[in-house]
């Protein structure tokens, strides 16, 4: 096995170990706080895919498919964050832009008259473009005025939310309904389920996976992705090399906005019949979690998204079926981050691998040198 592969494997195993340890910490908390810890654990760890009946445990296909459905918006937001974080732009507006994309896509789904097929495409594309344009705000403020994109994008979330709520309340609300919501989307705009079974697993997942590939190619096989990554690693180097740093910083955030806007509209037109979000949906924040777990590598985003969806569902089930509160999920997530983010976690063991590889390389080099020597 080559040394690169070994370290790759190590990093992978380290991630797994971080997750296991985090679950262990969670277990401790569950044992401390629950009167029925084993039941609680059972629901947390197995509940998302297995249903427990009197006849025994069976694999729950429906539940599994809802897990996959839950990944749709978070894959998009995870990808958006990957792109922006890769350029070292800590833009946190994914959250608001998802809501905006959902709102724009939803309105077009209500008021535009188009044939199905074209209708969805137009809704999602316009939402994506609006998402990209709105990200120009933090991006240009950063490049032109040096304003921290972290601060402006964070505030932008609430600006977006309240503007949407204003228009929802005063312009687009369906007054015949008790709750504040829009008129229903037309059937032509709805994104259909892959199998009509109520799991909300729509074609959106396929689109999301296609975008995983597109974004992976974008980041590692195009000049723009290359420029984004170089800026992220060393901005001074990028500038000195002649990369147009300002333009690429804007680009990274616009691409992030496009992805978030797209994700929001696909989620809205797939899962709901009317626009009913009255607060930020939370997918943007999850996107940050996912990007960190995936180490900003688009290819790992679906895996991270699935993991987060699983954990989320497990905690929900645990909260419903046992006496552990739903907030436990925060503890588990926090401990995973702690272990993930801690560079020194298992550093000693990594060092041992490195030493072994180095010694072997040296031995090989010396052997080669010896051979050369004997030849000459």
């Amino acid at each position, binding site marked *: 096995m080559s040394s690169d592969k070994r370290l790759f494997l190590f990093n992978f195993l380290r991630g797994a170990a971080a997750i296991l340890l985090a679950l262990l910490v969670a277990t401790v908390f569950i044992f401390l706080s629950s009167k029925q810890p084993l039941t609680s654990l059972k629901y947390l760890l197995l509940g998302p895919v297995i249903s427990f009946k009197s006849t025994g445990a069976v694999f729950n296909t429906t539940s599994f498919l809802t897990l996959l459905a839950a990944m749709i918006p978070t894959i998009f937001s995870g990808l958006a964050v990957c792109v922006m974080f890769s350029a070292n732009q800590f833009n946190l507006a994914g959250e608001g832009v998802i809501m905006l994309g959902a709102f724009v896509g939803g309105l077009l789904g209500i008021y535009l008259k188009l044939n199905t097929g074209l209708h969805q495409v137009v809704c999602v594309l316009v939402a994506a473009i609006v998402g990209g344009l709105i990200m120009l705000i933090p991006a240009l403020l950063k490049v032109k005025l040096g304003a921290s994109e972290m601060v402006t994008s964070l505030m932008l979330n609430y600006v977006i939310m309240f503007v949407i709520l204003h228009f929802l309340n005063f312009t687009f609300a369906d007054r015949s309904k008790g709750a504040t919501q829009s008129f229903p989307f037309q059937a032509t705009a709805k994104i259909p389920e892959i199998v009509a079974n109520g799991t909300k697993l729509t074609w959106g997942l396929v689109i999301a996976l296609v975008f995983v590939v597109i974004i992976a190619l974008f980041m590692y*096989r195009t000049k723009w992705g290359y420029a984004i990554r170089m800026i992220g690693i060393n901005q001074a180097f990028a500038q000195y090399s002649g990369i147009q740093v300002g333009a690429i910083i804007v680009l990274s955030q616009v691409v992030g906005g496009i992805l978030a806007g797209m994700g929001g509209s696909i989620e809205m037109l797939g899962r709901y019949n009317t626009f009913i979000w009255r607060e930020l949906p939370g997918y943007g924040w999850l996107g940050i979690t996912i990007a960190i777990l995936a180490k900003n590598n688009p290819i790992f985003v679906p895996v991270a998204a699935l993991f987060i969806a699983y954990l989320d569902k497990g905690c929900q089930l645990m909260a419903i079926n046992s006496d552990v509160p739903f907030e436990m999920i925060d503890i588990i997530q926090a401990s995973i981050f702690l272990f993930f983010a801690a560079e020194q976690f298992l550093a000693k063991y990594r060092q041992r691998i490195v030493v072994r590889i180095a010694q072997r390389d040296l031995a090989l080099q010396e052997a080669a040198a010896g051979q050369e020597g004997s030849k000459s």
Partner: protein
Amino acid sequence: MEQEDFVVQMKGISKVYPNGIAANRDVDFFLRRGEIHAIMGENGAGKSTLMKILFGLEEPTSGEILVNGEPVSITSPNKAIALGIGMVHQHFMLVPSLTVAENIVLGMAPTKSRLFVDYKKAVQIAEENADRYNLRIDPNAKVVDIPVGMKQKVEILKALVRGAKILILDEPTAVLTTQETSELFKELVSLKEQGFTIIFISHKLKEIKQITDRLTIMRGGKSVGVYETANISEEEISRLMVGRDVILEVVKEQSQPRETVLKVRDLEYTDRWNKKMLDKVSFSVRRGEILGVAGVEGNGQRELVDMLFNLNTPDAGSVEVSGKSIIRMPQNRIRDHGVSLVPEDRMTYGIADLATIEENVISDRFDEKRFNSGVLFNMREIHQESDTLIVDYRILSKSRRQQVKMLSGGNIQKVVVARELSSKPTLLIADQPTRGIDVGATEFIRAQIVDLSRNGAAVLLVSADLNEVIELSDSLIVMYGGKVVAYFEDTDKLDDITMGEYMLGLKHQTEEEIAKVCYE
């Protein structure tokens, strides 16, 4: 085995860094009490690592350390200091906004009623020690205002005040002028006479011969031998260091300068601390010649180079490349005009450390047509380009996919040089191109630069290394206090003593003499 008085014994020291580099492999190092002992070796030979281990900055992977015959484990610099070991780093660890006295007592400041720093007492401590060890300093000056030579004395005093009996000096002369160097050597000898033991890390053969008693030579992480300095010749040391004979002199043909490429006129710049860093700087560089810029660091060279690559904007004056002003021009267009820069600070500007060798060598050309097919990169072309550069510029690496961070200093610089020289520039700005890298890489890079100029490029060489700037340049200017103070059309007759006088501002030429460098 004869009984010797070893103050430090390091036995079988090995060190593997987390990035996989085996910096020390079974190294033995024995230090006699009261000697000046040189550690010599190319960059990446493991000298600094060995010393960092002794000073507690790094932990050895295996091996044993004895200080005064007692086995010790030095886990932190504090422990090293407690054992009487002090280190003067290559890059000074001083607080620039504090005074010399404050820096000397930092962390152990005398106090009034345990609450306030007793500044008078601090000055007194500084002065007493300065007198005792014969190190002349101004205790009330702010560190930011004092020359490099004095900063070094402050560093040495800092170590002595903390009770160091063994002093580690990491390339202490790298930043000093000839005069400052000889002053330092006098002081070191006087310290030795007072019973201190000194470890002296350097690449410079002449200095080693001049001042040390013994020397340990390292190569490829191993110790290749310990010698009495008197019994070994410079040639032999250099052969042991690199494992082959190195030509220290640069061989180059006479230059045949052609038309002017770079034209700098009346450049002025005042920095944000209101210090005039460039004062009416004017010169020209022509095709086919190497113009050197000599000077003690901090006399405007860095600012000058920044202006030439639009990394900063001058207050007044002009910079033209082949007749076009490049002030405020974006770097990609400056590069399109045929300008390349080997930056002084290679880790900040020269490379993206977490990226691969391949990603680093294409950073100035990745958007060229040949590397793109449609929206995607043409990976085959990119692989070919990086493989060619790795071979042509002898970058020692496992593959093009290796992280640049994993390479040694010399090989990192080769990555930078490969990129900057292979773009066939009409103007190459080389800022300290061989600082801190090994003899082999230095020799290779110098040859490449000479080659480029003889093939018709204009080269501006900025270097604080006097030998380099004299050997490599066809003609040179000296900068002092932000001004060009001397121009030498021919570098053949120059010696470091004359140069030192100009570099320290003791002498300067007339305006007419200096103006000749504009070739008008």
